[in-house]
């Protein structure tokens, strides 16, 4: 009896974790789903072939979202790695960490409305540069905070050992720091990629409706009550994180929910 309750709880948990993905994929292959039918009446590949066809807005926005996310992730990872070292060994480490945490903890959409004036003045509203810069402003603090745990005493001791043995700063970086940081860099890159990939509120305000990322399209389809295209766009959004999960679980754990 005790074991059957435990198995039931595990079964429910497995359902909670897997059912949403299964249902979204099912809806993305559907065309007709009238109440009270439990399953869609028509399953077809048509939605996918139409939407992923050449020149369709969704395939274009997939490419736009991917390009923005890759650029933001690359820039945030490199800058975060460098800046986190500065903070980690700074006498005022705790204060600087606190100040870095503040922009990361703020709601991106509220941050965006506060920054909108400056983006208008700089001509960065409604274009890709503006969105990249705005997303970088929220991804970079995350990257800095992430790398703070890397810069510990052990890394510093290794670097000092290289200098003691006559090595130069460049050698210490290339042969000691970089190999030690390799897994941190990869994980941080993918997490920053997901911050950018998942972003909606900030992108909608800075993009001003002119730049259509995938999340913007999901919202448009939901507003139009086009649930099958919305489900398909959702599937495209969750596909990269699921693939990352397949390679390494640690790629997709982020605090911000």
């Amino acid at each position: 009896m005790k074991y059957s309750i435990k198995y039931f709880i595990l079964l429910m948990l497995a359902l909670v974790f897997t059912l949403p993905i299964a249902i979204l994929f099912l809806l993305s292959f559907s065309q007709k789903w009238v109440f009270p039918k439990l399953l869609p009446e028509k399953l077809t590949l048509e939605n996918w072939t139409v939407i992923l066809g050449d020149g369709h807005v969704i395939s274009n926005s997939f490419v736009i979202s991917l390009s923005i996310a890759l650029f933001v992730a690359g820039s945030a990872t490199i800058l975060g790695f460098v800046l986190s070292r500065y903070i980690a060994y700074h006498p005022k480490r705790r204060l600087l960490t606190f100040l870095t945490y503040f922009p990361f903890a703020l709601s991106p959409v509220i941050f965006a409305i506060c920054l909108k004036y400056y983006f208008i003045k700089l001509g960065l509203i409604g274009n890709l540069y503006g969105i990249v810069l705005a997303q970088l402003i929220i991804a970079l603090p995350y990257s800095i905070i992430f790398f703070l745990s890397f810069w510990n005493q052990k890394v510093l001791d290794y670097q000092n050992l290289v200098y003691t043995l006559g090595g130069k700063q460049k050698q210490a970086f290339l042969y000691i720091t970089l190999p030690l940081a390799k897994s941190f860099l990869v994980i941080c890159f993918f997490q920053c990629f997901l911050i950018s990939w998942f972003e909606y509120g900030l992108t909608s305000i800075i993009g001003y409706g002119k730049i259509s990322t995938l999340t913007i399209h999901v919202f448009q389809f939901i507003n139009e009550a086009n649930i099958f295209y919305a489900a398909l766009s959702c599937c495209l959004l969750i596909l990269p994180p699921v693939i990352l999960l397949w390679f390494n679980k640690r790629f997709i754990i982020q605090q911000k929910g």
Partner: protein
Amino acid sequence: MFKPLNKTLNFSILMLFTLLPLLAGLGYAIAYSFGLVGVLNKGFTLENWKILFSTSEVYISVLYTSWLAFASLSICIFISLAVVLAFPKKFKSGIFSYLVYMPLAFPSIVAAFFFFQFLSNAGILARLCHQLGIINQISDFPNLVNDSYHIGIISTQTFLSLPFFILLYASLYQAEKLEDYQKLAYALGASKKQTIFKISIPILLKRSLPSIIIYFIFKLGSYEVPLLLGKSSPETISVLAVRKLQKFNLLDIPQGYAIAVIYAFLVLLLLFIAFKKSKHQYEV
């Protein structure tokens, strides 16, 4: 020569990308709310703040947002603790160590869309109830999205936070050597109930308190989920601020910025508490 230059450069980039946007953004919001900048503003005034506090809208919004964050986090922490204490090693290896990560692949907007399809009157749950003969028509099914009890929002927020807390408690369970404490308690004659409620849960809650506060802050700023699954009134802080700032009534804009300022100070205060509670350097 090289090191000071590096330090100056690092400090400048740090300021440029993190502190400058923060100070500039908040400074502009404060200035706008006090009438110092903006199209219709004519100089320093407290009028916008007086108008904002003359109605209950902003108080209700802050309380409502805090309630949603508190409710979803409480449910999430309760489930996570129960699951981790019942299956402490289940999430370290095997199929569940992968499945638990699945909700983390969901952006908020996708989770909100799924829960709308699942809980709405014509959703999957309603169809299932119809097949089982529990309801006869759509109107028989209770409103679970855009509803008065905010079930849709709380369910979605719980779903999104659950993996993080399960993984957090599973790792704390190992790191804090809870198994050893439990064995010691049993050896000293404690019952299973005493071991759970007097040892395991207090240790896990105490160690996770800074993370709980940080997660509470994140939930306060939630935008997409209440936008899609909430009612038009009350609104969460983010939704209210964006509505005031994005709609066509220019007279509402200073109040929108005032709401943003209130929210920012609330976040600052909670973050300060989280840092005070954390004895170690705070890291992700």
